[in-house]
């Protein structure tokens, strides 16, 4: 049976690649601290010795569009090309190609449907920065096969927060029921408070530092009930107009499990958002 070697949740700041590779006058003052935190975070995955990465993210109107918008979609393809012209344009992200694991994707699709999730699937999915950013930060060798899972946190109507938690629990069960002896890391990225294209964007900090502090505490302590008691589709408008991406963090809380304290917790207060990084080892910390 497959082993969940690590559960990892993080933000996916598209400027990390540019900031971490910049030199001289182009290198922002926060880059060194950011890189140091990421390298420590990366080690938490490396130590887990994963064979495959299940990666939860969200398409940013790149391939998925309002004419045919899935709520949850599994990529089932032998390869995934990555990053798009407008991400190259704005963030300097490189073009990439990652191998897929069709066998695990098929298992998740079949059994996810049977578990009550009407999962969409794609045989030709070009992935974007929600999935390539954690590759860049956590596995820059990009040498492991992936199963991408996209959630809709972007185009209302959205599934409610509880549904994300339930899907996370189900993904954990699906991976653990895969009858193949592989070490699987489940990685998901979302947002804390965030505003894009609105009045509160690009401030000195994230738009709602108080929400960010609470969110980090919920995630770090596995307080799913506390989180669900305060977070609704309506309430997520208050910390920033892009904060519905927090539901992908909630999905990862479902993967980690109620009451599961994260083994690694870190954050970085950047100029318009708080970055946050969490790792759990469900089967004990690797030696």
């Amino acid at each position, binding site marked *: 049976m497959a082993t969940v070697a690590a559960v990892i949740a993080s933000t996916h700041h598209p400027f990390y690649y540019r900031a971490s590779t910049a030199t001289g006058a182009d290198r922002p003052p926060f880059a060194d601290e950011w890189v140091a935190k990421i390298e420590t975070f990366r080690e938490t995955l490396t130590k887990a010795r994963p064979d495959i990465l299940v990666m939860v993210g969200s398409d940013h109107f790149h391939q998925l569009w309002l004419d045919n918008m899935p709520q949850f979609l599994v990529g089932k393809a032998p390869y995934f090309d990555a990053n798009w012209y407008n991400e190259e344009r704005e963030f300097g992200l490189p073009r990439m190609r990652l191998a897929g694991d069709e066998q695990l994707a098929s298992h998740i699709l079949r059994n996810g449907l049977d578990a009550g999730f009407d999962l969409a699937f794609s045989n030709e999915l070009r992935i974007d920065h929600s999935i390539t950013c954690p590759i860049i930060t956590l596995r820059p060798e990009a040498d492991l096969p992936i199963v991408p899972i996209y959630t809709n946190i972007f185009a209302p109507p959205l599934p409610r927060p509880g549904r994300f938690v339930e899907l996370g629990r189900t993904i954990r069960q699906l991976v653990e029921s895969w009858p193949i002896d592989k070490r699987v890391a489940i990685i998901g990225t979302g947002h804390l408070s965030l505003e894009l294209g609105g009045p509160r964007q*690009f401030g000195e900090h994230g738009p709602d530092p108080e929400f960010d502090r609470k969110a980090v505490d919920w995630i770090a302590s596995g307080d799913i009930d506390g989180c669900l008691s305060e977070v609704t589709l309506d309430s997520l408008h208050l910390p920033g*107009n892009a904060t519905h991406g927090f539901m992908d963090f909630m999905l990862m809380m479902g993967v980690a499990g109620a009451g599961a304290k994260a083994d690694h917790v870190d954050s970085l207060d950047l100029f318009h958002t708080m970055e946050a990084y969490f790792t759990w080892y469900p089967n004990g910390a690797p030696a």
Partner: protein
Amino acid sequence: MSKYLLNKFLYTVDRDPELVERYREDPVDTVTWWEQEKANEILNCAVAEKSTWLAFTDDERKALREQDHVALFGLGAHPFLTLTLFIAMFERDHDPLEYQKAYGRVLRQHYALPYPEIAT
């Protein structure tokens, strides 16, 4: 309201480098051409298969022609789409982050919570 079409314009222009430049340089002509030729093309379908009913309202057409991000926000255009396209067109004329901060500052003069509904 044809919020879907408003977003479809922003989406199809943002993903096409030539259209980004065309919209930057000649917004009135680009919006007119796009509404006549492209608005009813069903994405990912053969070009011959078209819709027959999509058109902007006068307010939407005006906001797009004037590249008025405040008006587009008020009309419920998806803010991520408007921002990313407008950064592509105008960030080059400013210092780093200057355009994005000014964009938010102008919106603050017109909007507070609750923001206009973006559901299509």
